[in-house]
């Protein structure tokens, strides 16, 4: 299975999203609070400035001297950089008597409503204003003259510098937030890696090794947590598995040895029987005895065949088996096999269609591959009941393998049997007394093909619909095979 999203990636995503969420909301709250604090402190400062102006102008002797007033407010503007404009309204008998502004374009009618409010109630009005990229604050404050309300100021403050400071601070805050979220994310990931990912990977590697057959694999995790427990269970399981596998291997070896020994011991006395019986048959004149000898001969041959094949299979199964790998021409081999079988084929009225039109070179043991062909063609002959029978043999290249198919129009196999045909001593029809079949042919074929790194399987559409045996062998590759 291809891994698309690793656990660490998912964990990373979770951690990233969580910390981003936390930090953004924290930064947002922090910035909002700072802004509020700033605005509050700024309006306090503006009020204080207005009062300072009031005190300075209120102490003036000639309040209604416009020249003096102008100089006063200009001085105030000059000494306070944040103050952009000051206007002084001094009404008398309900109408504006004196108006002095640092902005001589103004005529005193602006904000008259607010001025009226302030003049009536003596309260300070603040009007914040925000245009394109500047923050302004207009403060309208009362002028007191010997404790009496005499008029109003209109003071325009620029909050730009303070806002710039604020935004610089905000920017720093964001940078710090980003930095810390990175630190948090990375440290969290490192932690996660140490406590979760590394143990998981260790276990995964161990599982991989086991599945490759290395049963001595043990995992050591010393974290004293669930992973350590898991590792312990794993080790216990592996140990059990190893000892059981050893037992099974030992038993299998013993079984093979036993079969080999038994086969050998059975074969030795059979040889004189099968060689002497035809001689006896020739000497006997009595037809009845001749028939009896014939029956004995057939059974002895069958037994010898059975023993020989069992020995062959046991040999293939033994670890000592050695193959003579070389460059083998499949077409050549097939033709040879068909030549050997031509008498048998003709006798059974079976036609063979060989569709191999070129040579396929495989890297294999010549004799064993010949045995595969021999076994499979024999099988086909055995299970073809229709006359005339037909066997079709084909081969094609598949990547670095060659796929050979041997198709017949025989009795076929029902699906339940397909899974068992490669089992030792399995015969499709037990009731059939079949002297020709030992039930070992396909087992031997599978053993050979698998020892060559190939694959063999059977397909059949159903009873009486024929059978196709497929097997794959590795093609000869001069680069790889010659170096080995």
């Amino acid at each position, binding site marked *: 299975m291809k891994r698309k999203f690793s656990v660490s990636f998912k964990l990373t995503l979770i951690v990233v999203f969580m910390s981003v969420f936390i930090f953004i909301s924290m930064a947002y709250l922090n910035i909002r609070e700072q802004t509020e604090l700033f605005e509050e402190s700024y309006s306090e400062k503006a009020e204080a400035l207005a009062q300072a102006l009031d005190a300075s102008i209120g102490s003036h002797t000639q309040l209604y001297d416009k020249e003096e007033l102008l100089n006063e407010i200009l001085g105030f*503007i000059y000494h306070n950089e944040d103050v952009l404009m000051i206007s002084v309204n001094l009404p008398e008998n309900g109408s504006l008597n004196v108006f002095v502004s640092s*902005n*001589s374009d103004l005529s005193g009618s602006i904000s008259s409503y607010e001025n009226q409010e302030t003049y009536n109630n003596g309260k300070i009005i603040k009007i914040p204003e925000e245009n394109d990229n500047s923050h302004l604050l207009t403060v309208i404050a009362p002028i007191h003259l010997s404790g009496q309300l005499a008029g109003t100021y209109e003071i325009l403050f620029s909050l730009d*510098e303070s806002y710039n400071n604020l935004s610089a601070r905000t920017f720093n805050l*964001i940078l710090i937030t980003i930095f810390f979220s990175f630190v948090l994310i990375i440290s969290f990931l490192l932690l996660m890696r140490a406590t979760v990912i590394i143990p998981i990977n260790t276990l995964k590697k161990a599982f991989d090794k086991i599945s490759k057959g290395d049963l001595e694999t043990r995992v050591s995790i010393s974290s004293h947590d669930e992973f350590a427990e898991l590792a312990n269970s794993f080790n216990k399981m592996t140990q059990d598995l190893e000892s059981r596998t050893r037992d099974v291997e030992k038993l299998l070896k013993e079984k093979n040895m036993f079969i080999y020994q038994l086969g050998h011991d059975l074969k030795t006395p059979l040889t004189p029987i099968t060689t002497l019986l035809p001689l006896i048959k020739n000497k006997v004149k009595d037809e009845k005895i001749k028939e009896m000898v014939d029956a004995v001969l057939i059974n002895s041959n069958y037994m010898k065949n059975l023993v020989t094949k069992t020995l062959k299979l046991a040999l293939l199964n033994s670890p000592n088996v050695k193959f003579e790998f070389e460059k083998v021409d499949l077409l050549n081999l097939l033709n040879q096999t068909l030549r050997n079988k031509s008498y048998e084929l003709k006798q059974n009225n079976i036609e063979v269609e060989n569709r191999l039109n070129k040579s396929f070179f495989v890297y294999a043991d010549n004799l064993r591959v010949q045995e595969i062909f021999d076994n499979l063609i024999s099988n086909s002959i055995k299970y073809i009941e229709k006359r005339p029978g037909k066997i079709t043999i084909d081969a094609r290249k598949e990547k670095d393998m060659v796929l050979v198919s041997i198709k017949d129009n025989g009795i076929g196999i029902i699906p339940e049997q397909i899974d068992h045909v490669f089992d030792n001593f399995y015969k499709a029809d037990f009731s059939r007394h079949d002297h020709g079949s030992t039930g070992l042919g396909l087992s031997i074929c599978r053993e050979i093909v698998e020892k060559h790194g190939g694959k063999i399987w059977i397909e059949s559409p159903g009873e009486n619909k024929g059978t196709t045996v497929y097997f794959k062998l590795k093609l000869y590759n001069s680069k790889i095979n010659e170096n080995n």
Partner: protein
Amino acid sequence: MHKNYKLCSVMVIFLLSIIFSSGCITSEDEIDPTILRIKNAGKLVVGTSTPYEPMEYIDDQDNIVGFDIDLANEIASTLEVKLEIVDMNFDDLIDSVVAGDIDISIAAITINLERSEQVLFSNPYLNAGQVVIFNVSREDITSPEELNGSRIGVQNGTTSQQEAEKYTNASLVFTFDDYSTAVDSLLNNSVDALIIDYPAGFGLVQNNEGIKIVGNPFTDELYGVAIKKGETALKNEIDKIINSGVIETLEEKWF
């Protein structure tokens, strides 16, 4: 490897989204007709009146230089136009602004009510108020309030004379017709201090050794940039430049 690659891409997307979301959203301002006119002309015509060192004067290379010229340069470069200086009679400056012959006038013009009625002034950029000048050997006096009983030298008929009489006995105020004799009197201790407006005082201190300015101006005589009435947007631009810290740099350079 693919794991790290994905991790990096997530981080990068996270960073980019923050950068983009915090990126400034600038809106195109509607350009004021006055500023548009100046930009279209490609130059800012500034009226001034030399010589008034160090505010504006003609240097050895026949260039008009000075504090005000630098300020004019600053304004022109902010508006992204060239600067054209027109040197004229001081009395004609205000009329030229009113008539529109020049865009603005920067010429150490003190803001007062009469001028304010004719032109629009920027916020004050320099205080040319009265300062006290001492012999460098005197370290006991630091502000005009401490001048009581001291002999003060002033130029005859100036506002300085009125100011001096506020701080000491009128009989102790000595008047001079020109500053060089006043400086001599200060150097030989015939008077204890001189009261003089800031730019002139600065010029004296530059050209004579042994005297110093003590403290800041103690009266307000504020210079402003004269702008044609109604051109508020230009005033706002200039106010912004005045508030931007340029003035501090120029004060360091010229005073």
